[in-house]
């Protein structure tokens, strides 16, 4: 992230954490109603909200901005016939509206990234998710680019990003787009998550480590054609990735996704500071994160957008909107299957997650509140079922 540190988001330093040992950064989070994916309506809402959270112009002017969008490992699926962008993935209208605002505020280029399980590494990989580059460029003065970061792409090598005080990872090897960006924006969906409790802007970073080094379909060496998910390396931790340096500490618990995933999230968030966090909560799913969970997930419609300049604060407000305590103890809802990554992140000094210390602008939390059905509890198979 060349230059990223000098562009630190305008977070204030909050009160000392318990014991007074650490000061936790915090920044306001904006909540706004938006009932449908109509471009002008979404854009107007985002403009208002970004003005409420800080000086986005100062953040992005003349900068190369990377937007990590929350897409998933298929573009073919649906939830009971409802398309992915209304349920599981970020809606292209939200991404395009955000991109156009960033360009209007002076961004030199906006690169939309995620790793997608398709051979193409350019814009054609995004079409199944409703992301059409020509439409984006029409709204963004030609400054949009799509990059599938499932491997190193056109680069000769990967970037190695160190994790300050990493617990389960000391470094990540990632597509160079993440390292070359000046500003990192995380754009995700307001969803439950089985391992992380909620899908937030920090959980969204789970899509950064490329399949070519971390994928389940690797044998014993990197493979630029790999498209597999990272279940074995970063959920169940039954094997190490095929990275050039051994950066996993081994302090994971084999088979315990609820322990491992939150810690990897925090180590990703520590290595890749998010400067702007935006959550698409207009239409989403509840109970879990994707169509692959089957009929457990159902569509729901909060009609909300959420934005902030500290991802932990933003995700914590999002959890509260969903009806949960963002500082809830481990193994309680919504973190019923494991650890509370928001609390872990606060302990690492990444941001505030305690509700009484968070600043909310735009709508009040009470106005925005939209209780989700909680994440399902994944235990041993029920003998009754």
């Amino acid at each position, binding site marked *: 992230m060349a230059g990223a540190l000098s562009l630190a988001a305008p977070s204030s330093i909050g009160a000392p954490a318990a014991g007074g040992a650490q000061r936790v950064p915090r920044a306001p989070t904006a909540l706004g109603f938006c009932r449908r994916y109509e471009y002008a309506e979404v854009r107007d809402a985002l403009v208002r909200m970004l003005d409420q959270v800080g000086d986005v112009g100062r953040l992005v002017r003349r900068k190369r901005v990377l937007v990590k969008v929350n897409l998933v490992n298929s573009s073919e699926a649906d939830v*009971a*016939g409802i398309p992915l962008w209304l349920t599981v993935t970020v809606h292209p209208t939200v991404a395009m509206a955000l991109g156009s605002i960033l360009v209007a505020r002076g961004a030199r280029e906006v690169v939309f990234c995620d790793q997608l399980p398709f051979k193409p590494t350019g814009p054609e990989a995004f079409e199944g998710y409703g992301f059409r580059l020509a439409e984006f460029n029409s709204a963004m003065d030609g400054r949009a680019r799509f990059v599938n970061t499932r491997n190193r792409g056109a680069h000769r090598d990967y970037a190695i990003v160190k994790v300050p005080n990493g617990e389960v990872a000391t470094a990540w090897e990632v597509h160079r787009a993440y390292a070359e960006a000046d500003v990192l924006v995380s754009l995700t969906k307001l969803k439950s998550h089985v391992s992380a409790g909620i899908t937030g802007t920090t959980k969204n970073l789970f899509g950064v480590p490329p399949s070519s080094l971390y994928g389940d379909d690797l044998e014993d060496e990197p493979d630029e054609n790999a498209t597999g998910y990272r279940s074995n390396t970063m959920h169940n931790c039954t094997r190490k990735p095929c990275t050039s340096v051994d950066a996993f500490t081994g302090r994971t618990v084999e088979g315990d996704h609820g322990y491992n995933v939150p810690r990897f999230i925090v180590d990703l968030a520590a290595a890749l500071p998010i400067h702007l966090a935006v959550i698409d909560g207009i239409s989403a799913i509840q109970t879990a994160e994707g169509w692959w969970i089957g*009929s457990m997930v*159902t569509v729901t419609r909060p*009609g909300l957008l959420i934005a902030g300049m500290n991802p932990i604060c933003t995700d914590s407000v999002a959890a509260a909107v969903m009806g949960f305590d963002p500082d809830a103890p481990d193994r309680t809802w919504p973190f019923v299957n494991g650890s509370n990554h928001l609390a872990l992140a606060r302990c690492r000094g990444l941001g505030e997650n305690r509700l009484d210390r968070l600043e909310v602008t735009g709508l009040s939390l009470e106005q925005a509140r939209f209780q989700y059905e*909680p994440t399902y509890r994944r*235990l041993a*198979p029920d*003998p009754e*079922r």
Partner: protein
Amino acid sequence: MSQPTGGLRPTPNADAPRELPAWHTGGGNNCRTGLFTAAAHPDPGRHSQIPASGALHASVVFDPAGTAYVADMAGGIRAIAPDGRARWERRLTGGVSATPALDCTTGRLFVATVAGAVYCLDAGSGDVVWQRAIPTASDPRILSDLLFAGDRVVLSSWGGRFHALDGTTGKSQFDWNAGISPRSAVSCDSSGTIYSARAVHERGVELVATDGSGAEKVLFVEPEDDRGARRTLVAAAPVLEERRSRIYFVANRGRGARLHAWSIREGSLLWTRELEASVQATPALTAEGHVIVCDLSGCVSRFTPGGEAVFRHDLRCDYLLAGAVCPGTEDIIVADPLGYVHRIDPTGRAARWLDARRSFQARPSFSPSGALYAACTDGAVHVVAAEA
């Protein structure tokens, strides 16, 4: 445990009709028809709101005197008098997504939570008469609208069973297979036979009849599709039309669905119609027996009792999560996830009645006086009073 002490408590009467005029359960009655038995004439110009303590996913139910019972996702339960005053309020552990059921005869309100507990509340005071945790080794959440019939409360949980509990004590009477991730309500005819739908691995979607002893009979199976039963949403309840001895039920298949009409008397399928989109909402019946289906593409379809399509109207709201209701005229009323309430005439012309600005995910209800109560995720019940 205490006995009900509330003000409802009509004298118990064994000869009382099973279907009281009050909209006492999801869909109004145990047949889940969504049909108001008299002609209601809500006046959209007479709009008011009743606040709740959280988003509303469950429909409002009523006693015959017009007291409204409102349950929300923050676990709040409120009894609201017809004049809008709160009679009592109680907070349960766990949000409520399933529509409660009211025993109008003895004044007991049955409520179930996403935390897996079933409560019997005194409808007059809100006091807990009994409560029971549904046993499960995994996730106990209860998402199916409750049913009360013959002093029996019926519901399902993600433990994968339908449970019939004694309405007086909460003790289990019997249970049966509810399939995968159950969220569909059961319905019940006047003889006490319970009809349910379930998704079963390697079989498909089954329509099941269960008698008062818990013995079940599979009436019909919609074979498993390529996606498998695990991905098949079974959320819509079977709808009974007793005068024609019929069950209407929806079986989702892939991105579409099939609407089946089943003859109880003949024990056979009368007709099947292919639907272009899957369905989450329980269908409704109009006064003349037309079937109304709200689907997950945002369309409302109307079929004659013979299965002929009358119209398919696109409300342009992405999808519809809640079923229609019928005010006893030939119109139908639909609440959508954009926050609009629509009135649709018999030809399929729609007019927007109300704008709540946030999504409706619960089927609207009618009070005994014919006012429309639309429970909204904005944390309020939007009330459209009957014409003066």
